[in-house]
Structure formats: structure tokens, C-alpha cells
């Protein structure tokens, strides 16, 4: 008898029901009802362990209520609802089911009370997300899905080794803050960081996410990286290594996106950048910074999902995905334009958007501490870079810039509803951040809307915008890709293996050939000597044989006496 119905189970049951439903609208309706039920259940989860179980001899804490868990589960449920509404007219049955299983996995992670439960739901997410990449149904999607699966399989192995190591050394599987002081905690951190797209394995994200269907990309943008951030908040708060990794991610995403032409790849890089902000805040540690990381997860998830939705609408209506093929769409897609502008401004932390609130919380958490002066400055530079990367460049290239002559209709009705809802979320949190504060794990003491903070942020954005227009002739998108670390396993290692095989193969071949020739010479020589016609092989007359025996005995006798 289950004493409490886990929120993830509500979504899983809805996924099961929608798997057997052929009508798209009914299927979507079931998915939305399931997500709403999970939302309702999420807010019934009291603090502490409320659902337990056992699996393969492990005692599991399947649902443990915390403020952070409720916040992330709420975010995942809302994102699922928005995603399902967006996908109502376009997602296949299998894709919708995979998206629900994916969301259920994320909710399971949010409420996991022990490391094994976290691992199980983690893997549920990995399987469902691989399926979402494969639904892209192209050769590129198939290959990217395999690479994605391999990376996450490796991540799972590392994570599980870390969990077993911790179990062995401490005897406990509780989710609690760890210090990075032995191999087991190092493996645990590495396994989580792979899902956060941290270096050196950041490339899987811009490789895989843009290959999914437009609706698949929306779901993919929400769950994996945000559950990784949640796990980092729970397990490694204040780990200073995360500051460096977060900053690297922030600048990596900006630099790679600046001349990128592929619409969804720009967004994938923006996703890495923003997760970098969160990882950095987790590394700073302390209540203010952890609040900031959680708040940024909420505001950013709304914004990036909105941008992926808008990108999907553009792809659907124009059939184009490269910015250099787009431009001038403001004429025919006004709703998509405004939603894109709001999402882009929110990601760029412009005042009156949710991004401004959470970015200010991150900046305030680093401000004032002497040892974090460089971090504060680099985060401000990265914020200006994000305005350049997505805030102004993306809407400019897609909707303004030169007129591409493309004249599609605006997004379909359901897509508009989902986009407008998320855009409203970005603005509401930006205008009334006090609605978000009670959901955060700690009391918020900062006030983002200080005149000096708003002014500083505006100066940063406005002059970054000035730089954009001054550098515009050189900022044209460049068709093609920019090589990343994944070059190692996509090109470098296979070519090296070919080279080694060629070199070793040819030398080994020559050596084997010489040995074979030598063996052949020995056997042919033996054949000559000992064959039927050879001197040792043919039949000798008895007299000749006796003579040989006498001669050999004489040689022996002489040798015996002489030596």
C-alpha cells in the first residue's frame, strides 16, 4: 500500500495511458491532466521521507520532500504542460510518451531521497532523452543519438561507481553535501557534470539537441541540465572547482555561438552558457548563491524553452534552420517575433524579465567578497556577452536583418498559446519577483530592483548592443561548424586508429611475409635433402650403409682418444 502517490508516478501513468490512445488531442489531454496531477501532488509533498521502497537489496527513499525538490518538480511539471500544449499538433504518439517519461524521471530526481533512487530516475531520463533525439528521424539524428547515448552511458557508469564508492566508504546512500576529497566523490561529481554539459564533455549538447524534432528540442532543453544543477546544489554546494567550470561553460557557449548560423545550435550554446552561470553560483555556495542558482534555473528554463518553441515555429513555417536563410520574418510572424524578443531579453537579463532577477541574485551573491572580485567581473562580462549572443543577435538575424523573402504564416494556435504562456511567465517573474521568492529554498534578502543595479545592467546591455551594431558587418553568421572536443572521437581517434592499423598492418605484414619466406626456404631445403630423391631420404645399398657406419665409428673412436 503506497502511503503517498509520487508525483512522478502520475506522469508515468499518464504516459502509459497516452501510449494506447490514437487521437492526438485526447493523448495531449491525458498528458496535461497527468502533469496537472503531478503539480498538485508536488505541493502535497511534506518535508522529510514520505515514500520508501526496496530494490535489489537497497532501501530506497523514493520521495523525500524539500523546498528545493518542490521548486524543481513544479518547474518540470509546468514545462511539461507548456511543452505538451506546444506539441499537440505536431508530436507523434511515441514522442509524447518519451517526453512524459523524461519529465517523470526529472521529477523523480527532484524528490529522490537517496543516491540509488536518484541514479534510477537519472537513467530513466537518459533513455527517454535518447529516444527524443532519435525521433529527429534523420541520419544526423541517428548518429547524434548514438553519441549522446554513449556519453550518457559513460556518465552513468562513472556516477554508479561514485555511488558505490560512497556506499563502501561511508555506509550511507543519503543525499547530502559531499566534500571533493576522494575518488568516490570525484566520480560522483564527474557523473553529474557530464549531464550538466560541463567541460571537457560539453559538445554532446549542441551536437544532439538541434537534431531532435522542434518539439523534442523543447523538452530536451528543460530536464537533463536542470536536474544536474539540482544534483549539484544538493551534493556539492560551495565546491570551488565548480566556479571555474561554470565560468568556462559561460564563455564557451558565448564564443561558440557568436558566428554560429544554425538557429537551434545557437540556442544549445546559450543553454550551456546559462547552465554555466548556475554551476558557478553553486560553486560560490552559501544560501544567497544557492538561492540564485535555483532562481536562475527557473527563469532560464522558461526563457530557453520559449526560444526553442519560437525556433520550432520558424522551422515549421519556413522549413529553414540557418539564420543566413532567414531574415525579415517580422512581417509574417509577429507573435513569434514578440515571444522571441521576450525570451531573448530574459536570457540576456534585461530589467523587467525573470533573467534580470536571477542574474542579479547571482551577481549579488558574489559581490563584496574580495576573493570573488574576478568572478563578479567575469560574470558581468559574460552577461554582456549573452546579450550579444542571444539577446540581440538572434531576433535580429531571424526577424529583421535582410529580407529573405520568406512569408510563412505565424505559429499555429497551440504553439502560440504555449509560447505566450511562457513569455508571460518570463515577464511576471521579472515584474513581480516576490512571487518566486517564497518557492526558493532560503529566505531572499537581496533586492534586484535597486536603481544602481538596474542602471549598471542597462549600461552593460545598451553598450553591448552598440558594439553589436558597430561590429555587425563582421558578425554575419558563418555556415558550417566549429570543431569541439568531440572531434577527438568523431574524427581524431578513428583516423588515428586507421593510421595505426595501416602502419602496424604494413610492418606486421612485411615481417610475417619474411617469416613465411624463411619457413618456405627451410621446408624446400629439407625437401631437397630428405625427400624421396634427397640424399638422406632415398634408399641406400647395404654396403654403402655399412661403410658409413664404419666411418662414423672411426671418427668416434679417434675423438674419444684425442679428447
Amino acid at each position: 500500500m503506497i502511503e503517498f502517490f509520487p508525483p512522478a508516478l502520475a506522469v508515468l501513468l499518464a504516459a502509459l495511458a497516452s501510449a494506447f490512445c490514437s487521437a492526438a488531442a485526447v493523448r495531449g489531454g491525458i498528458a496535461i491532466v497527468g502533469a496537472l496531477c503531478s503539480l498538485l501532488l508536488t505541493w502535497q509533498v511534506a518535508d522529510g521521507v514520505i515514500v520508501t521502497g526496496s530494490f535489489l537489496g537497497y532501501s530506497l527513499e523514493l520521495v523525500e520532500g524539500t523546498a528545493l525538490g518542490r521548486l524543481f518538480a513544479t518547474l518540470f511539471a509546468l514545462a511539461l504542460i507548456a511543452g505538451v500544449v506546444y506539441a499537440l499538433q505536431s508530436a507523434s504518439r511515441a514522442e509524447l510518451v518519451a517526453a512524459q517519461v523524461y519529465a517523470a524521471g526529472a521529477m523523480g530526481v527532484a524528490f529522490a531521497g537517496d543516491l540509488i533512487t536518484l541514479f534510477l530516475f537519472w537513467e530513466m531520463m537518459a533513455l527517454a532523452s535518447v529516444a527524443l533525439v532519435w525521433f529527429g528521424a534523420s541520419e544526423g539524428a541517428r548518429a547524434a543519438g548514438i553519441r549522446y547515448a554513449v556519453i550518457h552511458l559513460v556518465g552513468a557508469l562513472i556516477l554508479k561507481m561514485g555511488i558505490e564508492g560512497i556506499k563502501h566508504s561511508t555506509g550511507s546512500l543519503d543525499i547530502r553535501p559531499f566534500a571533493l576529497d576522494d575518488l568516490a566523490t570525484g566520480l560522483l561529481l564527474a557523473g553529474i557534470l557530464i549531464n550538466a554539459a560541463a567541460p571537457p564533455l560539453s559538445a554532446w549538447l549542441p551536437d544532439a539537441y538541434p537534431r531532435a524534432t522542434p518539439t523534442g528540442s523543447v523538452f530536451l532543453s528543460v530536464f537533463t541540465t536542470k536536474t544536474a544543477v539540482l544534483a549539484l546544489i544538493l551534493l556539492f554546494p560551495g565546491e570551488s572547482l565548480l566556479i571555474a567550470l561554470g565560468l568556462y561553460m559561460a564563455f564557451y557557449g558565448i564564443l561558440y555561438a557568436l558566428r554560429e548560423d544554425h538557429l537551434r545550435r545557437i540556442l544549445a550554446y546559450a543553454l550551456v552558457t546559462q547552465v554555466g552561470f548556475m554551476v558557478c553560483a553553486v560553486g560560490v555556495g552559501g544560501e544567497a548563491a544557492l538561492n540564485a542558482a535555483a532562481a536562475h534555473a527557473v527563469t532560464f528554463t522558461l526563457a530557453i524553452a520559449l526560444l526553442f518553441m519560437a525556433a520550432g515555429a520558424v522551422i515549421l513555417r519556413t522549413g529553414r534552420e540557418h539564420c543566413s536563410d532567414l531574415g525579415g520574418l517580422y512581417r509574417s510572424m509577429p507573435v513569434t517575433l514578440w515571444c522571441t524578443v521576450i525570451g531573448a531579453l530574459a536570457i540576456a537579463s534585461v530589467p523587467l524579465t525573470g533573467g534580470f532577477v536571477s542574474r542579479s541574485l547571482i551577481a549579488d551573491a558574489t559581490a563584496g567578497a574580495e576573493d570573488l572580485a574576478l568572478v563578479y567581473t567575469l560574470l558581468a562580462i559574460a552577461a554582456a556577452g549573452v546579450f550579444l549572443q542571444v539577446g540581440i543577435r538572434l531576433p535580429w538575424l531571424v526577424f529583421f536583418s535582410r529580407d529573405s523573402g520568406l512569408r510563412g504564416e505565424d505559429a499555429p494556435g497551440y504553439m502560440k498559446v504555449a509560447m505566450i504562456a511562457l513569455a508571460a511567465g518570463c515577464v511576471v517573474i521579472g515584474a513581480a519577483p516576490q512571487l518566486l521568492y517564497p518557492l526558493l529554498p532560503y529566505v531572499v534578502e537581496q533586492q534586484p530592483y535597486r536603481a544602481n543595479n538596474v542602471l549598471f545592467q542597462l549600461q552593460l546591455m545598451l553598450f553591448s548592443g552598440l558594439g553589436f551594431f558597430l561590429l555587425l558587418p563582421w558578425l554575419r553568421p558563418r555556415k558550417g561548424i566549429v570543431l569541439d572536443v568531440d572531434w577527438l572521437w568523431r574524427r581524431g581517434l578513428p583516423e588515428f586508429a586507421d593510421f595505426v592499423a595501416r602502419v602496424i598492418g604494413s610492418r606486421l605484414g612485411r615481417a610475417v611475409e619474411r617469416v613465411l619466406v624463411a619457413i618456405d626456404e627451410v621446408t624446400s631445403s629439407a625437401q631437397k635433402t630428405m625427400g624421396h630423391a634427397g640424399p638422406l631420404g632415398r634408399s641406400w645399398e647395404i654396403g654403402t650403409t655399412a661403410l658409413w657406419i664404419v666411418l662414423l665409428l672411426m671418427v668416434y673412436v679417434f675423438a674419444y682418444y684425442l679428447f
Partner: protein
Amino acid sequence: MKLSEQQLTSPTAQRNLWFVASGILLLSVILQLAIPVDDYFGIDGWLPVGALMGLGSCVVLFAGGWLLSLILGRAEDYYDD
């Protein structure tokens, strides 16, 4: 009166837009005389620090991105052959 697209995109309109934008940029700097920005580490309280940081970051990041694509940029089908 509703403006046509030609009127909005004409050279005169664009010049006027640049004037307005420049005015806003200037205003954001002048406003700092009345509203000093937070001075956490010394130099961040200087007058145009947000402006310089915004413009400077833009130039530096642009140069970095441009260099990156110059060195590591490849054709879209690089991995396909």
C-alpha cells in the same frame, strides 16, 4: 497616422534612430551622476564602468569568437565524408 514600411526603413528614419539610440546611451551614463552604481571592488564604481564593460566585452568576445571560427571552423558536412 500609420507609418509605412518604407518610411520606417528609410535612411532618414535610420539616422533618426541612431540619434535616439545615442541619446539613450548618453543618458544612461549621465544618470550615473545621480545614481552611483555599487562600488564593490573599487574601479566598478567609476563613472562609465558599465558602459565600458559592455562595449569592451562585446569587442573582446567578438574577437574571440571570430578567431575561434577562423581556426576551428569547418564546412557543415565536415563529419559526413
